[in-house]
């Protein structure tokens, strides 16, 4: 497939949990300011793969990779890359909304606080801007000092997106961001993703085929640690090349 400008790239990537070979020589390039969806059955390695892009797997005992992950053409697994710098560039949103047990305001500015930014004006401006980007500002502008845990699940997830946006990343990784939400909240998150791709490169893992169809430009299908097929979403959803892909997206797997 033709990629105009590749933002993220994996080259001959292998990943292991101890003896378990979780990802098998993956080669993929993801386009800038587009949405790439990873689909595949549970345990196919798509989440593991997603987490290699901000090195969230580093904390897992026995995890190691071979090969390269490139962000803007630069290998992010070399010794001179600082993980905290990397994560400023590559934000992440998780499956279950995970707001910190603090106020809404503190949640959004947390990323800035840990960078040592104390200027109130900057913090407040960033807070408003991020919440607006995440389409949450109108709902919470009067209760920024209230606990984030009092928000609904969908609002919490948009708060988590705002929190990720506050540190101005260029890439946002989303690990099944709507799987714990009701359909209306899911639709809001999907519309948000559609808006965000104007400015951000988004990689989303999803179990929901319709979701992949609705939000993504490109889709990668993983099966048993292999990248089986990678194509434009419309191409994959109308005429997949591999029978395994066909069986999976039509719900005939296994």
């Amino acid at each position, binding site marked *: 497939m033709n990629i105009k400008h590749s933002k993220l790239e994996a080259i001959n990537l292998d990943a292991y949990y101890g003896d378990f070979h979780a990802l098998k020589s993956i080669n993929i390039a993801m386009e800038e300011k587009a949405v790439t969806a990873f689909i595949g059955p549970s345990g196919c390695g798509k989440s593991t793969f997603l987490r290699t892009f901000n090195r969230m797997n580093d904390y897992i005992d026995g995890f190691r990779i071979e090969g390269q992950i490139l962000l803007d053409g630069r290998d992010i697994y070399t010794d001179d890359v600082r993980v905290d710098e990397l994560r400023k560039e590559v934000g992440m949103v998780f499956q279950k909304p995970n707001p910190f047990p603090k106020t809404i305001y503190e949640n959004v500015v947390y990323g800035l606080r840990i960078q040592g930014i104390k200027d109130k004006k900057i913090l407040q401006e960033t807070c408003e801007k991020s919440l607006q980007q995440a389409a949450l500002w109108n709902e919470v502008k009067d209760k920024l000092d209230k606990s984030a845990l009092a928000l609904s699940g969908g609002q919490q997830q948009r708060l988590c997106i705002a929190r990720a946006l506050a540190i101005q990343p260029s890439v946002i990784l989303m690990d099944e961001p709507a799987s714990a939400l009701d359909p209306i909240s899911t639709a809001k998150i999907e519309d948000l993703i559609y808006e965000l791709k104007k400015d951000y490169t988004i990689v989303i893992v999803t179990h929901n085929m*319709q979701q992949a169809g609705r939000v993504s430009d490109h889709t990668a299908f993983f099966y048993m640690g292999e990248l089986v097929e990678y194509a434009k979403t419309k191409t994959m*959803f109308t005429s997949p090349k591999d029978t395994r892909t066909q069986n999976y997206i039509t719900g005939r797997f296994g």
Partner: protein
Amino acid sequence: MPHIDVELERLREKLLEMWDLVEHQLTSGREAVMNADHELSQRIIKLERKVNSFDLKIDRMCENFFALFTPVAVDLRTVLAILKINTNLERIGDTAEGMARFACKLDRPFDPELVELTNVMVMYDEALVMFNECRTAFKSEDPKLAKQIIKRDKALNKIYRKSDVVIGKYLQNNPDRIPEGLALLSIIKKLERVGDQVTNMAEEIIFYREAKVVKHRKKKKKKE
């Protein structure tokens, strides 16, 4: 606007573009037939390729829309209607092309007397009005207008049904004009087809807008 609406709007716009193109074919066709304008006819024939590529494009867009958005309810009906209207438009385009080919064969304009007798220009104008109103009905999602269009088709059919007798009589008096008469008969036949296609399109518009109205009818019946 939600993503799905953005895509739906793109689809509608594409269809309306095609509509304009086919309209252009039809209106120029009228002129070409009237004046036996070969050059204009050639242009109409060439346009057919463009219409065909629109047809393919809209087909593909609908296919993608189904695959990516799994539409339901009004969204589903809209895309189904667009898919069918697309086919009808393409056929109308074909018809216009066919008429242009007849115009190409004419070495002079039709005998005004014959034109007068057959009412072909009235028929042509009526077909054009129906075609344009159908576009308005689609654009403004107006099922009422669509229903009126369906009624108008009767006028076309009337002229069509009379045409063979009229042309037969005329040819008896003017046996030297047989090719001309036959060409006109074919054109009338084609115009009748255009009327049918437009009726189909109008029916699609009613189908995709009126799921609700059908309900209301049932309620009324119950009340009675």
